[in-house]
């Protein structure tokens, strides 16, 4: 397919600029010529060309609305359309972030209540809505760790992160100047308590734990883990990417977590927009509230206002207040599903994952055979050994069957990993169709491995040369 630049034709235009209704002035008289540019090198196309270009592109893309999208750790649930409608209300979209407080009482109320709802769901004292994405929430959380120990006058230089963790966890730790130390998992998929005890010292700020972890398993020793970390003065961080398994069922705050980030674009049903915008609110227990980013919303009677007056704050991590429009969608979601709905969401997400796990267990190796939470992790090791079919091959073959592949090669501790997260919005029919397809592919792997290795055959492009892309990077088009 042609690039928009290759469709450009000098003289065409898809827009018109209003006539100038104020006295004309020469730009050169306002701004020195040396500060001005001569030309703007952008494509020139008619509106119809623009629309067809992007419609063609959209048809080369796959979203949850098109089909099943069991991308593990990403919680690709169906996003109800009413969210898009409410988030498009001009009462939300047309607000300037510096509009007077009198103009934005509804927005402030929404954010204030959102903090309360998330605090209740997670068992935390308060939330900041400022982080723009999950990893941004992590960074904010680890900054709070740092500030907390600075305030206490303790020098802690290390942070513990399990070997199964999301890659963003060690990166977040490193960006706050902590030395990242890896904690091993045991053979049952839980954190190795002995190893944790050994590592958790007075030099250690704490542990970043994902619970349920990235194997889709609940960390059964959470009580002991929290005790080990807290007894040595550390803090316990919860990567809440997998909160969809717990809503209304159990609360991280009750389990001893001091800090948690959520992903509104996963758990709370805001769509992910091809990679963003997300929203990564961060919740803390009472002893960490003073460190939250500024500004924070305060309520005085019925009136909401911003307040900057928090001397122990880590500061600001983003301009303005966070990805407000994403919050509107998540708020809509919480209001429409209510407390029973959130609980049923978690229960059915877990039911769906266990259903897939049971149905596929005879066909793929299940490294940790126990009740899973919202996702299950298989290994394609057997197929790889027997017929040279790898996780990436199976992923590509699924595409030919109209299904978005699961997350593959993650978590890193499972060889040839395939991480399947169905979410609660998928029907039994969809799950059965997926399982049937996976079983067919398992059969193909034995009998026609070449067919799988040639996949996908139905897409506009076949397998792409990623090595070439990295070796000779072409990230900007030149005529």
């Amino acid at each position: 397919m042609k690039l928009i630049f290759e469709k450009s034709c000098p003289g065409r235009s898809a827009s018109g600029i209003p006539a100038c209704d104020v006295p004309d002035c020469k730009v050169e008289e306002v701004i020195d010529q040396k500060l001005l540019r001569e030309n703007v090198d952008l494509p020139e196309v008619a509106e119809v060309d623009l629309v067809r270009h992007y419609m063609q592109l959209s048809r080369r893309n796959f979203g949850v609305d098109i089909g099943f999208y069991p991308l593990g750790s990403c919680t690709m649930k169906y996003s109800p359309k009413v969210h898009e409608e409410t988030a498009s209300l001009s009462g939300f979209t047309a607000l300037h972030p510096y509009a007077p407080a009198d103009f934005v009482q509804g927005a402030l109320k929404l954010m204030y209540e959102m903090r309360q709802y998330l605090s209740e769901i997670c068992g935390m004292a308060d939330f900041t809505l400022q982080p723009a994405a999950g990893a941004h929430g992590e960074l904010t959380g680890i900054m709070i760790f740092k500030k907390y120990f600075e305030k206490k006058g303790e020098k802690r230089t290390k942070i513990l992160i399990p070997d199964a963790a999301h890659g963003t966890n060690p990166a977040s730790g490193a960006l706050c100047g902590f030395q990242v130390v890896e904690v091993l998992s045991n053979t049952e998929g839980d954190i190795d308590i002995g190893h944790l005890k050994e590592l958790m010292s007075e030099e250690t700020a704490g542990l970043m734990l994902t619970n349920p972890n990235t194997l889709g398993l609940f960390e059964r020793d959470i009580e002991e883990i929290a005790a080990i970390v807290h007894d040595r003065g550390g803090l316990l961080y919860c990567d809440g990417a997998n909160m969809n398994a717990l809503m209304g069922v159990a609360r991280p705050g009750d389990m001893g977590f001091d800090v948690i980030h959520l992903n509104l674009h996963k758990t709370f049903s805001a769509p992910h927009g091809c990679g963003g915008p997300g929203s990564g609110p961060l919740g803390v227990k009472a002893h960490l509230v003073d460190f939250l980013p500024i500004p924070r919303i305060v309520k005085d009677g019925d009136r909401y206002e911003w307040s900057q007056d928090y001397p122990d704050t880590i500061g600001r991590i983003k301009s303005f207040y966070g990805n407000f429009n994403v919050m509107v969608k998540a708020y809509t979601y919480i209001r429409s599903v209510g407390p029973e709905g959130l609980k049923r969401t978690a229960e059915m997400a877990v039911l769906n994952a266990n259903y897939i796990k049971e149905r596929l267990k005879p066909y793929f190796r299940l490294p940790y055979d126990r009740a899973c939470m919202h996702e299950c992790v298989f290994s394609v090791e057997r197929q790889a050994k027997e017929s040279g079919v790898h996780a990436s091959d199976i992923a590509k073959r699924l595409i030919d069957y109209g299904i978005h592949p699961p997350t593959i090669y993650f978590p890193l501790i499972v060889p040839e990993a395939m991480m399947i997260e169905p979410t609660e919005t998928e029907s039994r029919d969809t799950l059965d169709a997926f399982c049937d397809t996976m079983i067919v592919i398992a059969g193909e792997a034995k009998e026609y491995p070449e067919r799988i290795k040639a996949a996908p055959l139905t897409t506009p492009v076949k397998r792409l040369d990623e090595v070439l892309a990295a070796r000779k990077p072409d990230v900007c088009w030149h005529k």
Partner: protein
Amino acid sequence: MDYVPHTEEDQKQMMKTIGIGSIEELFIDIPGKYWLRRLLDLPPALSEQETFQIMNNIGSQNIIADFCLMGAGAYYHYVPAVVRHVISRCEFYTAYTPYQAEISQGILQAIYEYQTMIARLTGMQVANASMYDGASAMAEAAVLAAKTLNRTRIVVIRSIHPEYREVVRTYAWANGYEVIETGYNATGQLDKEDLKSAVDDNTAAVLVQSPNFFGVIEDIAAIEQVVHGSGALLVAGFTEATSLGILKPAGEMGADFVVGEGQAFGNPLNFGGPYLGILASMDKFLRKIPGRLAGATVDKDGRRGFVLTLQTREQHIRREKATSNICSNEALCALAAAVYLVSMGKNLKKLAILNIQKAQYLKKKLSAIPGWETVFPGPTYNEFTICCPDPHLVNKKLQDKGIVGGYDLSESYPELEGCLLFCATEMIKSEDIDDVVSIIAG
């Protein structure tokens, strides 16, 4: 209402397959003491209609301004209809990050095109697929410079957006870097002598913004030697993306990185977010810049296609050696920006000129009010700083008429007591400006 499609029969059959007699059995790994044996204390569930009504009600508790004289990092522009139309395609907005390239060619190509347009507008060779916002893009560029050069001092000009400086400080503090602030002069441009004295051989980056927070355009070429002479990197920012349509790109004036807020390209005000951080750099930083990159390659039949490339830079491979932890970005906002830029084409320059004309007219009318005076003689784009006898009263009068007034600069600059920062975009009509003058005078 929940969005679970299961019937009772479905649930029963699935439980049977799993071999459980109750849903609780699924959660046996959670210690009993942590089971929440009550419902969450949240408002009760609602039908779609009720939900919509409640949201509509909350939305209408906000007052939509008749128009907006506020810029200060968020700009009120017309968004062509095609933008909303394109980003509302479910294939785009309901997709995740394009990990599976063969079924993500749409967004990958769109991002490749976006990167190309941003590189052209900024005068750089490389642009990434977006950052969270302008402030975090600036902070990440500073951190990257420090990590790359193994230096610990970051110099920021005081005329940079106050919130951007705060974000830079937070990121710098977390990494153990020192932030030095240097001043501006009577023209509203940076003070070159002050900058010279602050830059030393431990300086990793000098951060500058043009137009700066006072609306004044900086002469970036004039400081290029000061910065590079000490071996530091020059990070040039902007808050108002449409200014790229008329101003000489920082990349042509010696900047190593160009960072800024892309909201003005087709993204609504949205009470501050989501916006998109623009980050562009010289070729030599290609393998270091944070965020995602879409790259062109070929498939096994030799057809052109696109993939996320240079992923080894990314946190999920480099992990603890990462120079950034960004994962999700603002892809849909970048798509909106791309559609906006294609829609604008060459007209982006005309739009930028119209912004200058409107702002000049507003400036002229306001400075004609007795007691009002422009503060900085330096060249401006669509914002300017003006001093008046009672800024608070001015904004109050405008607010009473449903207008968002200017930004009170004394909030962030005590030395600028009495000064307001005003913005005029193409959305302001001539008669609006006349109204503003009579409201203020009234």
